[in-house]
């Protein structure tokens, strides 16, 4: 990534740097450099602390930390692992992305390309505003409104395709507070993020590209397909990855919506499954000494996971920016 800083544009103007560099400037440079380094120090501190607090649990569990599907860190002997947590986290986030990305992309296309500019901007701002609705509110609403409303849909899904798509089958015949429901709540929560970033990306397509396509006789949809979507693909991918990052780490809403039983389940419509973040919120109060270390260890996994997802997202964007220059 060291190559990604754009080269300074060639210029022949005289004042490329300040004429005077005094002691004030040296102090200023030191101060803001210190601030910059403090960010690196902060992330190192978070990593070091998480690792040191997770270590007793990791040492205790060994390789079992990856494979064990149960969570009894305070039992004798303790047995706990992140297998079920990671699967549940990935499933609920995948559901969220499957729903939120198409809708978010299409909705922001509609805002940018179809609606009158003023109306589009107003709706865009409204969506931004909804991005800041607190997750505890989504949790309350999801639990009392959305979950009951989704039960018939889940039953219907199971009846329609459950017999040959095991993911959409509920062996127990119970529906409701499932990974699918958690995924839908997450989708609603990350939708504004994805839509806002996609909108920004679409707005950056030069007007000339659009006008050229339209001048060649393209319909609006053809213009979108040929002039807007290809050049903004990295932006859309990055938006999705950032949405994924949010979905992976969401805590309170999932803890309130999901029927978090600690088991590794592949059945999206049956209550059960659990995510890393929701597990921390649910177990923290009753965790013993090793239990807390184990929860921090799972937090470390979550931290690494979101770090990786965000890093990939940023690299995609950076590469596209560099390529675009």
């Amino acid at each position, binding site marked *: *990534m060291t190559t990604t800083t754009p080269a300074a544009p060639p210029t022949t103007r005289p004042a490329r740097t300040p004429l005077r560099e005094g002691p004030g400037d040296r102090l200023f440079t030191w101060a803001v450099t210190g601030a910059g380094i403090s960010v690196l120090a902060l992330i190192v501190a978070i990593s070091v*602390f998480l690792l040191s607090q997770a270590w007793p649990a990791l040492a205790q569990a060994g390789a079992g930390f990856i494979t064990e599907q149960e969570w009894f860190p305070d039992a004798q002997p303790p047995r706990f692992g992140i297998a079920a947590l990671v699967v549940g986290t990935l499933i609920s986030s995948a559901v969220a992305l499957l729903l939120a990305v198409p809708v978010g992309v299409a909705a922001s296309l*509609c805002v940018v390309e179809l609606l009158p500019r003023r109306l589009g901007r107003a709706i865009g701002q409204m969506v931004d505003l909804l991005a800041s609705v607190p997750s505890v509110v989504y949790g309350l*609403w999801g639990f009392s409104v959305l979950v009951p409303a989704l039960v018939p849909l889940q039953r219907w899904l199971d009846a329609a395709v459950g017999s040959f798509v095991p993911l959409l089958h509920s062996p127990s015949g119970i529906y409701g507070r499932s990974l699918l429901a958690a995924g839908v709540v997450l989708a609603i929560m990350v939708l504004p993020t994805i839509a806002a970033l996609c909108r920004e990306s679409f707005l950056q397509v030069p007007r000339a590209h659009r006008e050229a396509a339209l001048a060649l006789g393209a319909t609006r949809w053809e213009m979108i397909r040929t002039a807007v979507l290809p050049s903004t693909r990295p932006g859309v991918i990055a938006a999705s990855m950032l949405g994924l990052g949010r979905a992976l780490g969401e805590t309170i809403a999932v803890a309130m919506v999901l029927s978090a039983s600690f088991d590794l389940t592949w059945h999206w419509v049956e209550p059960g499954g659990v995510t890393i973040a929701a597990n*921390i919120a649910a177990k923290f109060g009753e965790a013993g000494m090793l239990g807390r270390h184990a929860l921090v260890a799972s937090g470390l996994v979550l931290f690494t996971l979101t770090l990786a997802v965000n890093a990939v997202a940023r690299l995609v964007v950076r590469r596209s920016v560099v390529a675009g220059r």
Partner: protein
Amino acid sequence: MPARRRTRDLLARASLLAALILALVPLVAVLAYVLRRGLPGLSPDFLTHSMKGVGALDTNGGAYHAILGTLEQVGIAMVLAVPLGLAVAIYLTEIGPTSPAHRRLAAWIRFFVDVMTGLPSIVAGLFIFAFWVLALHQGFSGLAAGLALAVLMLPVVVRTCEEMLVLVPRDLREAAWATGAPRWRTVIWVVLPAAGSGITTGLMLAVARVAGETAPLLLTAFGYDAIRTSPVAGPQAGLPMFVYDQSGSAFAPAIERAWAGALTLIGLVVGLTVLARLLARRFRPLGD
């Protein structure tokens, strides 16, 4: 134009519009439902009373102490994260490009700031819990919550400020330098003012984001039933935590308080966001 292309265009347009409506429906539904459940409990008494001495079956009591706590915690987070974040952004845009070494450091900082925007809020809470509460023995407090929120806010502040500073035309800096102004004066008196409106908006949005966080508060502010004006005196309440706590009760009065609290929280966050837009308009640079 062949009918097939036109039909396809119409179909595509219709589905884009349908997607927009589909995106807005749940968002509107959330707001409408919270409004419906929250309004009956939202009274002047609710906004001006704490939960001190309120039993499980009592219908009085309110969120005043939690609103106050949230404002203080968010204020602390701002006081910590905004100057630091602004300084980092200034480093990235003003010092970063000046030498290869700075360029390399800036690239790393930018990368990790980006990555930190995805930091799960519960991890920030865990970090402050162990660092501040366990290792430094500082105990639970509004200040601890402010620290956790500041960790969450910092990357957002840096990102926003950097984006806005980058947009300030280079000519403006060069013009200032040409008059003999040193770099630091140029930044403070020329670059920052030019980016003012964008920065203000970004900051308010960052504030709105962290004001609604529940997970870190559970591990740092701890919760308190009475009014605690000082954020360093011990455990303090926070509005998101108030909602979470009250919603977990067995009895109807608490559930009503939870919804009223949720409505207040949305009002606070939305109020801040709208204020941000208004301020942005107010502080728009003259040339715009």
